[in-house]
């Protein structure tokens, strides 16, 4: 039994001043998914989300969100979706509680009626409910924005880069909140520039320059390429990086935390050959081993190939 489709877009195109912000995007999000749009600034994530939320009109392409057309059925659609934009968009000079009340009343509901939906999140900022929203810390603003986006019981939640500029611990906590909302049945479409957050999504698309480079579960994307990846460990990382780049069959080599990640042009690559080469260049203790790539490795390979 197939689950219903929550969002679909076919050959979606949107240009700004001759630049294609979205270039033939095809997207399908199933009910109950956490779907991630993963890509850097300027890739088209915000444009796509704004079109799906009826805030921008596409140049061409077919879009359906909850069976509605965001252009023709704008009003009906807006009642059913929650949207948390990338920038804090609440009223700075209203208090926490006033902001939430305003959103509830705009959607003809009340905090009381849907409190259970936001309880876990809102409880954390409730002690500050008389404080002006502008005076909240970054993390608290985020929780308030999420509460406001949820108070009318949306069927889909759109989040545009909710974790950008947020420290790793707060990011983790935010994803725990999203996971919980999702387990309670909420469909979520979320964008992020942080590749490591892909692992939290049921399916993802890697987006770059207005196009999807890959779509699938994180595991599918990791296993989709034919490239083999190796990690290289040794002292003097920057010099090691430059030396490795000069190896005759080097395809790519990038710093990855405490090691380097390497791919070779040849299928029959022998790590020991590279090891010898590096030894000759004066790098003594070098460890080279085959690794499973991460989403970021795949993103970089796809970027280079594209």
């Amino acid at each position: 039994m197939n689950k219903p489709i929550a969002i679909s877009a076919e050959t979606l195109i949107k240009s700004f001043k001759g630049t294609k912000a979205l270039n033939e995007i095809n997207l399908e999000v199933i009910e109950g998914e956490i779907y991630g749009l993963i890509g850097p600034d300027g890739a088209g994530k915000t444009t796509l989300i704004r079109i799906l939320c009826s805030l921008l009109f596409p140049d061409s392409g077919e879009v359906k969100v909850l069976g509605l057309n965001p252009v023709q059925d704008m009003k009906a659609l807006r009642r059913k979706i929650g949207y948390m934009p990338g920038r804090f968009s609440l009223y700075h000079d209203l208090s926490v509680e006033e902001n939430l009340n305003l959103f509830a009343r705009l959607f003809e509901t009340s905090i009381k009626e849907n409190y259970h939906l936001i309880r876990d999140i809102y409880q954390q900022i409730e002690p500050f409910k008389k404080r002006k929203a502008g005076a909240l810390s970054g993390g608290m603003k985020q929780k308030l924005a999420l509460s406001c986006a949820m108070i009318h019981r949306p069927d889909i939640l759109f989040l545009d880069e909710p974790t950008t500029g947020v420290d790793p611990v707060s990011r983790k906590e935010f994803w725990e909140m999203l996971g919980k909302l999702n387990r309670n049945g909420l469909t979520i479409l979320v964008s992020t520039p942080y590749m490591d957050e892909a692992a939290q999504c049921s399916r993802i698309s890697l987006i770059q320059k207005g196009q999807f480079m890959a779509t699938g579960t994180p595991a599918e994307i990791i296993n989709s390429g034919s490239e083999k990846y190796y990690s290289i460990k040794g002292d003097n990382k920057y010099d090691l990086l430059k030396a490795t780049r000069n190896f005759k069959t080097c395809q790519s080599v990038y710093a990855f935390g405490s090691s380097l990640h390497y791919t070779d042009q040849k299928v029959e690559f022998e790590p020991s050959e590279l090891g010898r080469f590096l030894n000759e260049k004066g790098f003594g203790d070098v460890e080279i081993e085959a690794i499973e790539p991460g989403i970021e490795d795949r993103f970089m390979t796809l970027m280079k190939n594209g």
Partner: protein
Amino acid sequence: MAKEPIVTVRNLVKAFGSFRAVDNISFDVFPGEIFGFLGANGAGKSTAIKMLIGLWRPSSGQATIAGFDIYRDTEKIKKSIGYMSQKFSLYTDLTIRENIRLFGGIYGLDRASIKRKTEELLDQLQMQKYATAMIHDLPLGWKQKLAFSVAMIHEPKIIFLDEPTGGVDPITRRQFWELIYAAAAQGTTIFVTTHYMDEAEYCDRISMMVNGKIAGLGTPDELKTGFDSSDMDEVFIKIAREGEVMI
């Protein structure tokens, strides 16, 4: 070998009323070092940086930047440092060449130096062909490299980079770190903040702030060993979430 530190910080405090945003921090940074200044949002990093670059007066404590006192010599400090933030701070409706000239002027370079520097930078960045392009038409990675070069135009001894790689694609992010390495190899001291924990590994030493205090300070390996962690992500979580401290 013991070089003289280029940044010395002793018992530095910034209080807002009863709240201590920066609560008695001390550390040294050495010439040519890449020093990672990490911490959770609201931990006090920005407040500390604002004092170090001479924008905010501390409540108490001492610090020197390139030999200058952060109470008395704030103008001299501003001339000895470069600063680049996430927002890149370039003028988007000026061209590449105009931005270089403008910042050269702001940093007090004479005409001849500005001219020489402009050509040098355009060559280095391989942007000669695009010298008359407006900033707002440039890809993000270019803006970032240009912002970095412009912040270095007066050849400062130390450069402060405030989340320089936020939102940038993974290849550009790594290319940017190569610029950082190259500058450090030339002897420039790098003071950098980031939320990417893999980038923490690229620093020579790291300080991690929690609630206004430094909870961990050392090389990436020292911190990983000290907090019994396999990577910096784990170190960060132990420090920021579980309140562990290593001194």
